[in-house]
């Protein structure tokens, strides 16, 4: 069925607003057809992932938009790139690729996007409100937006993100619709101890399992502590959007569209998967590509560390000096906040390497000796082996700091025991 267009949509499509607006609208309309959308809707804001350089295609697309007069029409934030503009001395990549990456970043800024360079736009002050329609790309941000904020976005990919920002429109389909946001699957924690749930360690692992079980479906997780923090929900979503194609999940009693299990499922009969300590241990081990305790570096903050997470790292490293390089990825806006806090000095005193605007798994910035990299992120553990050719192990933030201080992988196995 053809997509129904408003008068303004048709005007853009016919080139009344310039070549770039017409190109953006062509791509939106064709993708809307793929998604089965009947029409387009207004979006309040956009988060664009297409600013990250993967090769000339993305750069040439941005060139074509800018040369066609493209301007975004709604507030638009930008995702990470492959360059740390605040710490350029760290770049170890190919200079020609870095020049192309910089050019691509500049083009998106020229279209009127804000140079936020973060994969965690939900940590910025103005975040979408409950029920608001937005067009976000970046898989972890999509999950957070839908699940934790209760704002509505589909899993938008590179290209359509900026098209939606230019037109201020997006296809009315998928997670923009009430019915599509209901849980079709329940993951019920079964025998997972309060002690394990009190640590950071199980959350990315649970997310990894969620991605494996749910695939593209919306699932509800039952049994998490009611005070589960946004940072832990972030860890679940980022991992689930890596091992799976999860665009939304519910945490029963925590996230805004799931005050109860019935609210999450819409009262429908829903298959239930039991999440036992044994399954969590298996999922944790699947995320690791190394065994043994040899440690080359530690990387945390994927997605970008929040202010609360930076403060936790500062508290944990106070008075300690890591024996291996210890990297924290964060957004430049969060870093600016952190620099004003008393605890920030602890990070500096411990020699913590803060990476902004990019991420340690996207681009060669780490000083890697021999050995495995330890991370607290399911997403980092999932992608880094292929992206930058390292072996990984995963642990909670406390284990990451303890390992760095010891110069070898230190994990508290006892927390993973059966209840």
């Amino acid at each position: 069925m053809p997509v129904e267009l408003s008068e303004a949509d048709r005007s853009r499509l016919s080139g009344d607003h310039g070549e770039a607006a017409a190109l953006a609208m062509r791509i939106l309309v064709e993708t809307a057809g793929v998604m089965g959308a009947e029409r387009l809707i207004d979006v309040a804001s956009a988060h664009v992932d297409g600013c990250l350089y993967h090769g000339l295609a993305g750069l040439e697309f941005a060139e074509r938009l800018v040369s066609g007069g493209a301007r975004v029409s709604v507030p638009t934030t930008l995702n990470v790139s492959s360059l740390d503009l605040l710490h350029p001395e760290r770049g170890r990549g190919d200079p020609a690729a870095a020049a192309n990456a910089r050019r691509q970043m500049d083009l998106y800024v020229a279209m009127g996007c804000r140079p936020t360079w973060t994969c965690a736009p939900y940590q910025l002050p103005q975040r979408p409100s409950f029920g608001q329609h937005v067009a976000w790309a970046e898989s972890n941000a999509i999950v957070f937006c839908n699940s934790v904020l209760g704002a509505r976005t589909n899993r938008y990919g590179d290209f359509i993100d900026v098209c939606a920002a230019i037109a201020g429109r997006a296809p009315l389909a998928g997670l923009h619709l009430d019915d599509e946001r209901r849980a079709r699957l329940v993951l019920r924690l079964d025998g997972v101890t309060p002690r394990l749930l009190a640590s950071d360690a199980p959350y990315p692992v649970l997310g990894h399992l969620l991605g494996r079980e749910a695939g593209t479906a919306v699932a509800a997780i039952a049994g998490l502590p009611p005070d589960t923090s946004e940072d832990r929900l972030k860890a679940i979503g980022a991992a689930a959007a890596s091992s799976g194609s999860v665009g939304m999940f519910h945490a029963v009693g925590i996230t805004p569209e799931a005050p109860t299990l019935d609210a999450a499922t819409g009262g429908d009969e829903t298959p239930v998967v039991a999440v036992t300590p044994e399954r969590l241990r298996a999922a944790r081990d699947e995320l690791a590509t190394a065994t043994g305790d040899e440690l080359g570096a530690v990387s945390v903050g994927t997605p970008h560390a929040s202010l609360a997470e930076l403060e936790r790292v500062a508290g944990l490293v106070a008075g300690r000096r890591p024996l291996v390089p210890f990297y924290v990825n964060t957004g430049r806006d969060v870093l600016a906040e952190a620099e004003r806090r008393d605890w920030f000095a602890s990070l500096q005193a411990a020699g913590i390497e803060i990476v902004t605007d990019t991420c340690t798994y996207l681009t060669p910035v780490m000083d890697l000796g021999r050995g495995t990299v330890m991370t607290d992120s399911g997403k980092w553990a999932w992608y880094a082996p292929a992206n930058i050719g390292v072996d990984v192990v995963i642990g909670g933030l406390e284990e990451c700091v303890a390992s760095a201080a010891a110069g070898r992988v230190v994990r508290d196995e006892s927390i993973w025991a059966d209840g």
Partner: protein
Amino acid sequence: MAEARTLVAGSARGPALVLDEPLSFWGGIDPATGEVIDVRHPQRGANVAGRVLVLPSGRGSSSSSSVLAECVRAGTAPAAIVLSETDPILALGAIVARELYGRTIPVVVSGARGPRDGDVVTVRAEAAGVEIVG
């Protein structure tokens, strides 16, 4: 099983590469070579270039559209993509690659059983329907 449906129209022929699991193009394929680099994927080391790529769905990253478009530019893209369920992110990569480079990668959802690994097949994808024949 979803109904057979054209996501991006076109016609292409090539040997089928059937993946047992979903694959994220970003972090899963090296666009310089077309090789599957996802270390946890059962078909790691396989090459998608010129193949009729049959897979359950995409996975994960929203950058997969960029990586597919880059594969088209670099000449390492699959000849066609046959999915078990709709994946707008991969379709988008093919739509933008056609806009930029005038090269078409048909993307379809196959209703019936797709081709077997190694079978040389033609994919014809039109608005009216999908045909996959040996």
